[in-house]
């Protein structure tokens, strides 16, 4: 589904990704871990198409297409979804209006009619329940005055509404209490299927207790320095990152 080859990327002229390669097949869940500043969030934004996050080398192919040549909104319509680490507050635009515009944009891209308001509302209400948010949140301004956990659950809600084929979760678990984490994990697990892949960027192995990844990668200084299965995460939990880093002093 997604093939990243030797990706180099800069942010404000500074090189952050330095030759990252990653293959993600349909239905797979990949966890990306790594120390602060290793380029985890940058990867998410480069894939989602944020301005100023410039790919300077390598390639990204998504479902056979050159992903890097598409605008942010086109990538979203093709099925790429980034759950933001820090979701943006958009005062004055209701959550409902925002999600309907977004769902309709994706539908239009597929040549479908806009969804009628009644069915949209029905689906939105049902999904709101799944992420344990009150229906009131649909009427409120997008993320406006939401708590940290509510913002993360709202990201999940949007993901459920858009049903993307590639979900990138950028530290969606950070700052969540255990109950909220379970809600997020249940949501993600509910979305897992053979046609949908996940990249989970996380600091904490705790998330991986609830969402079991097929692969775990360690990102350091803009490159993947180690890949493995779930047991790698446990090893990291146990030993930290030090033993993997090249500049680590000998014990």
């Amino acid at each position, binding site marked *: 589904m997604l093939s990243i080859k030797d990706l180099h990327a800069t942010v404000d002229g500074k090189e952050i990704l330095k030759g990252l390669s990653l293959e993600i097949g349909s239905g797979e869940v990949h966890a990306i871990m790594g120390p602060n500043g290793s380029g985890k969030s940058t990867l998410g934004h480069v894939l*989602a*198409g*944020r*301005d100023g996050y410039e790919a300077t080398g390598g390639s990204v192919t998504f479902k056979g297409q050159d992903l890097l040549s598409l*605008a*942010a*909104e086109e*990538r*979203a*319509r093709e099925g790429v*979804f*980034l759950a*933001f680490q820090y*979701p*943006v507050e*958009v*005062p*004055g*635009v209701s959550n409902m*209006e*925002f*999600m309907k*515009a*977004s769902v309709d*944009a*994706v539908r239009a*891209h597929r040549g479908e009619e806009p969804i009628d308001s009644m069915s949209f509302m029905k689906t939105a209400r049902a999904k709101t329940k799944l992420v344990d948010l009150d229906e009131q949140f649909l009427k409120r*301004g997008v993320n406006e005055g939401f708590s940290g956990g509510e913002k993360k659950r709202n990201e999940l809600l*949007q993901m459920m509404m*858009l049903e993307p084929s590639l979900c990138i979760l950028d530290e969606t678990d950070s700052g969540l209490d255990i109950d909220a984490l379970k809600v997020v994990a249940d949501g993600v697990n509910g979305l897992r299927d053979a046609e949908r892949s996940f990249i989970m960027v996380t600091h904490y192995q705790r998330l991986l207790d609830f969402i079991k990844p097929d692969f775990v990668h360690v990102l350091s200084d803009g490159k993947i320095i180690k890949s493995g299965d779930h047991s790698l995460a446990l090893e990291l939990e146990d030993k930290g990152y030090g033993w993997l880093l090249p500049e680590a002093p000998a014990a």
Partner: protein
Amino acid sequence: MSDFVQAALALAPEDPAACLRELGKNGRKIWQGQTMPNRKTENWKYTSLRVLEEGDYLRRSEGGAVTDVQAIERLIASDSLTATPIVFINGQYSEALSAQSMPAGVSCVQFSHADSAQQTVIGAALGRIADAARHPFVALNDSTCEDGLLIDVAPDTRLKNSLQICNIVLPQAQSYTVQQRVLLNIGSGADASVIERYVSNTSKQNCFINSVTEVALADNARLSHYYLDMAGEDALHIGGVYVDLGRDATYNGFQLGHGGNLQRLDLQVNHNVSGSHCELNGIYLPNKAQLVDFHTCVEHRAPHCTTNEVYRGIVGDAAKAVFNGRIHIHPDAQKTVADLSNKNLLTSYNAEVDTKPELEIYADDVKCSHGATVAQLDEKSLYYLRSRGIDHDAAVMMLSYGFISEVLDSITDAGLRGLLQPLLSQAISEEFHLQVATS
């Protein structure tokens, strides 16, 4: 400079109605005793009057001959707007286009048609709230006022529909001046909604509008007052709204400055007795080389009064917006709660905003806040919306509309909201030079 001051007096009527004589005499005394406001006049620092002084506007309107009645009717009402119309064409009352009767409890009288009892009421009310000594263009209006309108809402009347004073301006062979004077008296316990709208059929206007509205709310009265300046890009408009609030009265004010070569609105609200409340909301959207200048001033003279003021501006191209929000809390105005917020969105590097919140507090037990911001559209918010599949232009529309929606929500007349929404969408897409279809 003083050429304009002298020349303007030629507009004064030769034989004014009895109620206007005293006003005119005093007004002329003040008007003649001053020079035109200029850059050194604090209240006019950012707003140049050159376009007015150098233009050839000092000529009376020829009145309101209408050729295309249907087009004019479309300006007055829309599918959504159901307000009772009171129509002026180029400053002249149009009986044909106005409602044939007023709702129960409402009386609407032209100064020139008032009987002697009404003349006394009007004479006593004129100039009582609008202070010519403080506002030069009130002095001009006083000096040259020929006619005007008194709307009186009887105590405890509850109006179902808004009243709409629709001032239509149409181009004339030679440029001209429209003087409008309105008195609104809202009786005790009454609840009314009044729209004052300046509108035109084309942006190619050649008039100067000088308008003054004096509003008196009796005890416990409520008024929603929508003041919409949409007279077109080429029209010049200097307007003033002056409000006195009785005990426990509520004034909900909304102002729209669509943008023009010169658009200046002064709004003054006086909390004279305890318990009154005012909400002041406004939007301005100048683009091209337009100017909108909103000066608001709230005088808290009594305890337990509240003011909530929210203004939003979107300014594009080489346009300029001026906002001055003064809240003056006198020593006796204890327990005042006053908040003022002014936020501006610039859509171009050449746009300019001069904003000045001005809190002056002489009481020690009050709660006040003020804030002003000037910014561009947030790149991160745009990216967030785009990352959900919404295209760039639609995202810009959504964010900008969201920026002013808090203010729009204050409009309780749903018909008026319906009328404004497409106009505002259109204005926003022009600000950003978007190609999106607006609906």
